[in-house]
């Protein structure tokens, strides 16, 4: 299925307001959706005949400074088509109030570790995630290193690391 067909299928089932904007200038066209629509859209994409996006390749969190973007790369094994979903989140830089988005672990289990990685390195909170601990860094690490405003710590457990 082409990008346009996937889009029209999505619009006819979930309404025209589901797609906030689309990006067709690049090599891979992308759909932008609102963060509160993420779970219904993902379930629809996975379960609808003709779409069957059963394979989640990748989740990336990108820090664009003015906002965060979470990018989902979806794949359908039976139909061999792909889709890029993007969700923009407000750039809240406080470490006590992370940007929040629904977890899609219930749709694709791949999301489990990918979301933990995004939480760990970019500081995105995935609500409803079954086990949102840090995955690559130690549990007591301060801050989220892939953020553009991250400052390297001087010491870790009293050891100079800079």
């Amino acid at each position, binding site marked *: 299925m082409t990008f346009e067909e996937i889009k029209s299928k999505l619009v006819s089932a979930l309404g025209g307001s589901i797609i906030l904007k689309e990006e067709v*200038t*690049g*090599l*891979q066209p*992308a759909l932008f959706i609102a963060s509160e629509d993420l779970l219904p859209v993902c379930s629809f994409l996975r379960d609808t005949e003709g779409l069957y996006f*059963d*394979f*989640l*390749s*990748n989740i*990336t969190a*990108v*820090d*664009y400074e003015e906002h965060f973007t979470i*990018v989902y*790369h979806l794949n359908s*094994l039976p139909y*061999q088509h792909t889709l*890029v979903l993007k969700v923009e989140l407000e750039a809240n830089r406080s*470490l*006590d*109030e*992370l940007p929040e988005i629904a977890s899609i672990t219930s749709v*694709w*289990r*791949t999301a*489990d*570790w990918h979301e933990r990685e995004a939480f760990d*390195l970019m500081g995105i*909170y995935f609500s409803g*995630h079954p*086990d*949102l*601990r*840090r*995955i*690559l*860094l*130690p*549990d007591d690490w*301060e801050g989220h*290193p*892939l953020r553009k405003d991250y400052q390297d710590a001087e010491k870790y457990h009293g050891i100079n690391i800079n």
Partner: protein
Amino acid sequence: MANPKYREALARYEKHLAEISTQEMVLNMGPQHPSTHGVLRLQLITDGEIVKEVVPHLGYLHRCFDKHAESLNYGKTIPFTDRLDYLASMNNSHAFVMGVERMLGLDSKIPKRVEYIRVLVCELNRIASHLIAIGTYGIDIGATTPFLWCFRDREHIMNMLEWVSGSRMLYNYIWVGGLFYDLPVGFEARCSEFISYFKPKLVELDEILTQNQIFISRTANIGVLPADVAINYGVSGPMLRASGIKWDLRRIDGYSVYPEIDFEIPVGQGAMGSIGDCWDRYKVRVDEVRESVRIIEQCLERLRKDFKRTADFDPRALVPKKVNLKAQDYYVRAENPKGELGFYFVTKEKSDIPLRVKSRGPSFNNLSVISELGKGVLIADLIAILGSIDIVLGEVDR
């Protein structure tokens, strides 16, 4: 992270460990356990010999690939990609380079000779990677001889690739727009010599391991991974194919010159037990080695007949002085020995340094299924299951 909401999962995990019953025991497998193939730590909650729960802990080999890639230009990142899955460095750099070339619009202009050389070295590296998977799998469950045989044959490949690139394991050979150098004179002949040496060795390996009754008893019907679970967990590569799904990106995406090459995609048949068991995963890798040999033979033939070495051929002719991209994003994927390797690039306007590079390692996703596969198995079987996943920690932790 002062907000208790963000420490809630950690507290829950600690509470869970503290509240196990008296007959249960927490057992740490790794990070210095030989069968974890690197620095992986699996925390097992066991009841006698039975594993009730597996909690993997990663990050012991985290080298901040994503962060490094944000501060270096594309060419300088290639050596870092070599260190992701360090057993298949050529394949890593091939995937990375393909992504940059497609964003530059260079991919259709790459000379055929360069593409065939890339596929040739990638397939050699795929054999080397699978040989490690097969050999160490043997030693995981008690067979020492196949391990020595596999490392002996792999050493021939390492020597050949060292001759090509100057380095034994971390090559930096495939560059954006071309190659570091053309193949050395006489490489094709030596490579054919290796292939004719290697083919009978594969038969021997089959006899000692594939049909070995002890090996079959240890692997058949162990760690059965149903196809739907595999897909839902994002498992790819030989592991997904062992579960019966014919999914190979070399065929699906048809990148580089793979559409011009004839090869089969082996899938798990359940010949010794059920589809998707440890034996199937092992067998798919053995069959893939055979297919890679076929691909190498075809590449060598084309390189000798159609795309011969000429005096004026320069593999660096298209290598850009500076990679100048417009602001865009692109996700490239390629079939690595271990599965789908993806790089997601977000580029900046008029800059040769990306805004964000995310690497999607196949081992990372393949490993995530261990908590599912490890439920209720014997501790000894967990070793067999982990070995059959074939992880490289350089890629899990990145």
